[in-house]
Structure formats: C-alpha cells, structure tokens
C-alpha cells in the first residue's frame, strides 16, 4: 500500500504543527462573521511559497476546514452564520442555545463536522478520479434544478405562513439580481449607484438579516441572551449519544456534502441547506425542525465540512476549483510549479497523498481544538454582561461586513438590511427565505438561461429541462420536499378543524412567529409596497437584453402575485380588536437608539476613522444595553475592555489581514 506510506510523511512534527496551528486559526477566523475561509487562505498563500509544497497545502487545507467548522459557533451562539456554509446551522442551533442547550449544540456541531470532514477527505483519498466525473455530469440544467430544490426548503421553513415565505424568497431572488449580470451583461437595479454594481454581498446580507435583529432584541430587555444551561458545560457525553443515535443522518449528510462539494460553484451553503432539507424530510418529527432539533445542526455541519474534501476532488483532478478557497489553493500550487490535472495523482503522488493525509489529521484535530475553543466561546457568551456583549457583537457585524471587500458600503448595506429585516420579521416575513433566495438566485438564473440557450439551439428546450436523468431525480426530491409539509399540514388541519393556537413542540426560541389569524393591516400595507416593488422591477427590465430580462420578469410577476394573494387572504379574515394585537413593547426606545447608533456608526466611519468611531459607538451601545447600573469602577473597566477590543480588531485588520482601512480624520 503506497498510500499508507505517505501517512508517515504527513506525520512529521512540522506538518502536525502546521495542521494544529491551521485548525486553530481557521476555527477562530470562521467563528467571526465576515472573516471567511477564502480570506484566511488568501492572506496566508504567500507564506506557503517558501514551504515544501505538501506542508504548505496542509496548512492551507487545515485553515480551510477549520474555518468552515468555526462558522457554527457564531450560528449557534448569536444566530449569525460565521461563514455562509453555516446558514442552516442557525435554524436549529440558535433555538437550542436560547433554551439552554447551547453547549450541547456546540458539541454536536463539533462531532458532526469531524465526521463530515472525515467522509469528505476519505472520498478524496480513495475515490477522487472516479468521483470527479460527478462534476462533469452536472450541466446547467442540473444546477437549475438543484437551486429550485434548495428553494423548496422555504415551504418547510414557513409552514402555516407559506405565502409570506414565498414573498420573502422573491425579495431574496430580486436582491440576487442587483448588479452586473453574468448572463447578458446588463447593469441591473443599481439605482445608478456605484455601490450596487458588484451586487448585494451575500456575507454582509447574511450578517445584517440574521444578526442585527438579534442585537436589537438583545438590548430590548434585561433577560440573559441565552438561557444558562442547567447541566453546564458542553455536555459532550450527551452529544456523543445523540450523534450515535443519528448516525444515519450524519452519514447521509456527509455523503450529500461530499457530492455537492464536488460540483464547482455550489459550495458549502447549498450542501448545508440540501442535507438539512433531507434530514427534515426523513425525520419522524419534521415539525420540530427550526425549533431546536439537534438533527438540524448535525445535518448541516456534517455536510458543510464534507464539502472541503469533496471540493478538492475537481480542484486536484480536473484543475477546476470546487469552491472559492480551492481556487486560491489551486493558484498557490501553480505558482509552486505543480501541474494540476488528470496526471497529478501519478506524477506528484507524494505531494498529493501527503496533503490528503494532512487534511485527515487536521480534521481529527478539530475535535479537541473545537471543544476547547467552543467551551471558551460558550462560557464567554453566557457570562459576559449584556453591556459588553451587545457592543462586541455589534462591532463584529461591522467588522465582518467591512472586511469582505475592505468596503464601508457593505457595512452600510448590512445595517440597512438588518433594520429592514427586523421590521419585516415583526410582521411575519422571516429572514431565512430572503437569504435562500439570495444564495440560490444567481445559480438558478444562470442555470435557467444556459439551459434555455442550449435547448433552443437544437430546438429541444422542454427535453433539456425535463428529460435528463439526474434532473428528474432532483425534481422528484424537490416535489417531495415541497408537498410533504403541505400534506401533513393539511392532514393536521383536517384532524383539528380549529385554528391551531397551541403547538406540540415547545415554542421557545422559535423563529416561526405564531400566525395572527385576524386581519393584519401592517402586513397588508407591506404587501402593497411589494406589489409596487414588483411593478418597478418589471418595468426596469424593459431596457435589458432578453437574456438579462427573463428572470426579473418572472420574479416580479411572482412577487406581485404572492403579495396580492396575501392581501386577499387577510381581507377574508375577521378584523380583530386593534388594541389587543400588538402590545406596546417597553424596549422600543432602546431598540431605536441602538438602530440609530449603528446607522451613525457606518455613516461616520469613513469620515472619522475606524478606531475613533468604533470606540464611541461601543461606549454608546454599552449605555443602551445596560440594565444593571453598576458603579463607576465597573464602567471604567468595561470602557477599557471596549477600547482593548476595538484596538485589537483594528490592529488585526490593518496589520494581519492587511485590509485597506478608511483614511478618516483619526484612526
């Protein structure tokens, strides 16, 4: 066995050290929203030029896999995916943390990530050349249907509230169209503004849509952010028992993750969403998903770490990067003078196999490293006073959205979308369908237009869409996901015959607000605005090329149609007593103040400078978030902590990540 021999090459102290440092660094970077795996790998590439190729690859691979895993921390503890691949982790991870099971969720995420990472890496080790063919079997049609499959998850995520979910998806799909179109090349819906040319950045949108509402709610009441756990700690033993019981789920999700990782352009977020959807479908209690079902966390985390190994398969075998970090690693290999491609596994076998073993070792190291960092992060979030937690999380959202492109426009967009998201969420439009639309929109659009072009060239458009075998499989899976929740919902309604007010599963921390069964004027007003938006999108598409206009036309028509349906639904309901519906919220003043501070923060930042603005905002948010009224001494300590945190992140960004910081009056 030659392959086993390379294991020894990977076990040198240098390689082990690189794997360990890489995993630690990756996990921390991944846990901070906005600091992505791509960024971490890009910064470190030059350092690997002087290393031995295999050692350099191990370092990069370890950072990559660590970052994908680290994304789960932020998703579980503050409801914000640290990396886009952890989107579906928030669905159940945050509700678990809210009800006091945060430690357990972290343990589960760690176990699932290691398991998924191992499945992906073993597939890379043993089956890479044959599996690379999967990448080639997926044409534009399959990508289109895969995106549609991902969108069907909305039906499951918004049971009892489907129309609002569909409207949210249309909004997300619309946001995905903003900017220069890949197909057609049209400049779409930028309002003539430079900042929208590159489109709505996914990571800043995710941070805004998920995290800003959490901070706004955080300051609105004196309750602790997460309910403290009764058992305490990470509850590893319990986690292992849960994971063993769900071994089928973990294995299935890992395989899904590996296969989707192989598809160039799909990536960890789609892998997480698809396996989440599959886990929900095959579960005996699908209605508990989205309310803190451990299987949701296990499925997503197993799948997204499996994409690491999977993504390396087309990268190394075909020279086609599976994911953005793979693209950077591919470039690093080329600079080192290594020829990527079908012959790599034979000509450069020592490098490739040493690297794959290194990746496996790094994945195993994630277990102790992750549990250690996880315990620390969890305790920090539980114990830190609210007056420090709220400004720190707010600072992280600003940093994260700024750091992606060193662009303050992204941070401004993040705050704007975040406040919008909080308002929409209050009226039953949840963020997840919007995010799904945004993630899947461009894949769906490109797949659709490409399929149409190819089909039209040979006069077989319908055959192209509906008769390819893999497509048929995906369509069937999508139909099942779509119809099953509707069917069970219908069955349940038949059985009960009354409006379902009580829920079988505890509703604490649920993101699905109980639907108001009376006529809701604000919802109708918002729907009216969406109809206007739909008309604007439709007329805006008139000047575009046919390729670029197809999707806007379809989406705007759908948006208007769903909005009209929503208004009609509400018109048919009895109008409820106005006074009872929305009790005055005592935290509104604090919420409003926080929203204003965050807006002022991102507006003043480019003029005044990062450090000065951030520290001022930090202190203001401390005041807004405080309920304890401590003594002057405590205030001084908190302010100093705030200064240290702001300065530390400033230094990290300016000198380690080498971002271009805004040149304001001060630092």
């Amino acid at each position, binding site marked *: 066995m030659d392959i086993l021999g390379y294991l020894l090459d990977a076990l040198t102290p240098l390689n082990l050290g690189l794997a360990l440092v890489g995993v630690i660094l990756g996990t921390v970077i991944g846990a901070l929203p906005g600091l992505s795996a791509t960024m971490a790998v890009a910064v470190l590439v030059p350092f690997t030029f002087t290393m031995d190729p295999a050692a350099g690859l191990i370092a990069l691979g370890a950072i990559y896999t660590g970052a994908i895993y680290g994304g789960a921390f932020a998703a579980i503890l503050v409801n914000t995916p640290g990396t886009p691949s952890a989107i579906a982790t928030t669905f159940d991870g945050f509700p678990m943390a809210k009800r006091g099971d945060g430690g357990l969720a972290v343990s589960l995420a760690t176990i699932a990530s290691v398991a998924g990472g191992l499945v992906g890496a073993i597939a890379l080790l043993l089956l890479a050349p044959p599996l690379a063919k999967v990448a080639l079997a997926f044409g534009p049609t399959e990508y289109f249907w895969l995106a549609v499959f991902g969108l069907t998850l909305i039906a499951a995520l918004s049971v009892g509230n489907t129309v609002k979910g569909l409207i949210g998806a249309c909004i997300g799909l619309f946001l995905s169209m903003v900017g220069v179109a*890949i197909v057609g090349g049209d400049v779409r819906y930028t309002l003539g503004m430079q900042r929208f*040319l590159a489109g709505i950045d996914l990571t800043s949108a995710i941070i805004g849509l998920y995290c800003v509402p959490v901070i706004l709610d955080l300051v609105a009441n004196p309750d602790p952010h997460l309910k403290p756990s009764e058992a305490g700690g990470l509850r590893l033993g319990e986690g292992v028992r849960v994971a063993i019981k769900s071994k089928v789920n973990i294995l299935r999700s890992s395989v899904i993750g590996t296969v989707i990782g192989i598809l160039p352009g799909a990536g960890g977020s789609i892998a997480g969403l698809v396996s989440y959807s599959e886990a929900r479908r095959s579960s005996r209690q699908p209605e508990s998903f989205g309310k803190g079902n451990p299987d949701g966390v296990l499925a997503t985390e197993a799948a997204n770490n499996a994409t690491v190994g999977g993504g390396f398969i087309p990268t190394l075998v075909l020279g*086609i990067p599976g994911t953005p970090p793979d693209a950077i690693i591919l470039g690093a290999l080329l600079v080192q003078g290594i020829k990527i*491609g079908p012959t790599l596994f034979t000509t450069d076998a020592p490098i490739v196999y040493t690297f794959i073993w290194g990746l496996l070792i790094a994945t195993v190291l994630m277990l102790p490293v992750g549990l250690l960092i996880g315990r620390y992060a969890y305790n920090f979030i539980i114990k830190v006073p609210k007056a420090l937690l709220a400004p720190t999380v707010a600072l992280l959202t600003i940093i994260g959205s700024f750091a992606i*492109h060193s662009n303050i426009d992204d941070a401004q967009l993040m705050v704007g979308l975040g406040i919008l998201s909080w308002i929409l969420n209050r009226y039953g439009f949840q963020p997840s369908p919007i995010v799904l639309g945004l993630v899947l929109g461009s894949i769906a659009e490109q797949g659709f237009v490409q399929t149409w072009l*190819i089909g039209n060239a040979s006069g077989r458009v319908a055959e192209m869409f509906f008769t390819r075998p893999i497509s048929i499989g995906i369509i069937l899976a999508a139909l099942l996901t779509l119809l099953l929740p509707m069917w069970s919902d219908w069955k349940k309604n038949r059985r009960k015959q009354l409006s379902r007010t009580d829920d079988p599963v505890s509703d604490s921390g649920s993101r699905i607000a109980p639907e108001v069964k009376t006529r809701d004027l604000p919802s109708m007003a918002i729907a009216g605005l969406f109809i206007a938006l739909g008309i604007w999108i439709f007329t805006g598409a008139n000047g575009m090329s046919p390729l670029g206009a197809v999707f806007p036309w379809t989406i705007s028509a759908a948006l208007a149609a769903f909005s009209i349906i929503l208004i009609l639904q509400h018109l048919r309901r009895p109008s409820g007593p106005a006074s009872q519906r929305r009790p005055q919220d005592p935290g509104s003043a604090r919420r409003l103040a926080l929203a204003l501070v965050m807006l002022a923060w991102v507006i003043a930042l480019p003029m005044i400078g990062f450090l000065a603005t951030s520290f001022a905002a930090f202190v203001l948010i401390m005041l807004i978030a405080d309920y304890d009224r401590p003594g002057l001494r405590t205030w001084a300590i908190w302010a100093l902590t705030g200064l240290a945190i702001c300065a530390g992140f400033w230094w990290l960004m*300016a000198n380690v990540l*080498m971002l271009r910081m805004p040149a304001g009056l001060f630092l």
Partner: protein
Amino acid sequence: MKRTVATALVALLGAIAPAAAQSAADFPTKPMTYIIPFNAGGESDISARYQQAEWEAVTGQQVVIQYQPGAGGAQAWSQLNSLPGDGYTIMGINMPHTVLQPLAGSVGYKTEDLVPVHYFHYTPDAIFVRAESQFKTLADLVDYAKANPGLVTFAGSGSNSSNNLAAIRFNTEADVKTTYVPFSGTGPSVTAVLGGSTMAGFNYATSGVTQGDAMRMLAVAADERLPAFPDVPTFKELGYNIVGGAYRGVAVPASTPEDLRQRISDIVSEINKRPDFVQKMESGGFVLTDIGYSKMNDFVAARVEEYTEGAKALGIIK
C-alpha cells in the same frame, strides 16, 4: 498607527533629504501593494503571483497582493483614481473589460480615466472540444456548423467578454451561425465543455495546459503558434482573421507623476525578461507582450477601436 508613523517618516525624510532623493530612480523604498480586481485563483491572480515571485529581485522590495473583486473588476477600477498616487499602490487592469464595461452601462469609470502603464501579457482565445468530440479539426466544426445553423454551442466566460467577442467574430469570419452560452468564469465554462453540456468552448489557451489530454484545442487566436502548443494552428493560418484574448496589465492612479509611471512600467518590463518568469508564463499558455508606458496610447486607441466595433456586433451599442 502604521500609516501615521509612515506618513511622519516620509514627511521627515522630505524635510531632511533634498527632493531629488525622492526621485523615481530610488523607487521603491518600501513594499508595494498590488490590487487584483478579481477573485484569487484566476488568470489575473496567477500571473500577478508569478510577478510577485520576481518582484523583490528586480526592485529590492516586496509586493503585497490584495483582492478587490466585484462587478467583473469594475468595483476596483472605479475606485482606482481615489487611491494615493505615490506609486506604492498599483492595480491589475484588463482588456477588453475596461473598454466594454463603460460602453455597456454606467460602471463608475470611463476607459480614458484609467492609466495603464504596462500591458505585460495576454491569454489568447481558443476553441476547445472535449477529447471524445467528433470534431478533430476546426474544418470539421465549421462544416458541421454550416450544415446545422445554430446547433453548435460554445461555452465561454461571461457576457460581453473576450470569449464572447471572439465567438461573434468567428461567426462572421467563418460565415456560420453558432450559439454562445455565457458561464460565470473559466472554471464553469471548461466544466461545461468537459461534461459535454456544450459542443465546444471559446476559452483561453491557458485552459489547455491545465486540462491536458482531456480537451483538444482546435485553433488559437494568437499571431504565432504558442510554445506550449506547437501542434495547434492559429486562426490566421486557417484563413480566419481572429487574433485576441484578454490583455492584462498594471495601472496606477491618475495622480501618479510621469516619472513614477515610467519607473513602474520599467519594473514590469524587466520582470517580463526574467527567464524563470518567461518559462512559467509560456508553459502556462500565457503570451508575453511588452507594451510599456510609451506605447500605451497607441495600444489603447487601437483596442478601443477594435472593441467598439465588437460592441456593435454584440448589440451593446447601436
């Protein structure tokens, strides 16, 4: 802090040393920043990384590569002139992107706003088919396209790109009707060719190196045959007047003084002569060009004329 210290140092130096000591001859005296307006891993990144490996030997200073992707490069180019013009910040620049984008719509900059100082290489367009394809030569493909108008599909990287221009040009030159299918970059479009989603692809010659025997290059849009592909004919040899591809160079903010523009152009020229660099680039399918600052105006004018013509064919302008 770092910036303040650096500014203070520069001010101090300016006060002590005579102005001549700051001249272009000494440039650079500290590490430079090289912004790539695309994601890492593409041709722009890889060629810049090859340059980076030689940078210190030529200038005595290192260069730091940063990425500012977005809107097919427009995000970065529209901000180029707001960067300091001290020569220490340079940016990758591409053709036909910087001509076609402003023609297609309002992208925040105009072609003549940008100051390229050196175009150091291009990647010629080339027609590829997968190994199993029925087309063994370009003549096979042209015959088939003539017999079946519209049926031949070409995968390429993006709309209004160099690949797209070449595909349109090929239709005119060969008097055939083919369908161009835009993909979101080289990777996905090569995948479409390899997987048989499209019959052929208009990609860059560099893809031929990474794919080896899995893809066959039928013709390349260069003046002469490429060293890496001595057996692949040029379009010219076959009677089609198609030469072109994506040109890549280095640009500076418009506020950069003339002597520094020339100096940076010289640095890039010198790197272009380093044997290691030449070897890596040519075996990768890149074609080196030596279009320095002095030749820049003529070069840009010629390209603008050519691409404006192409933009009409693409339907971008009437």
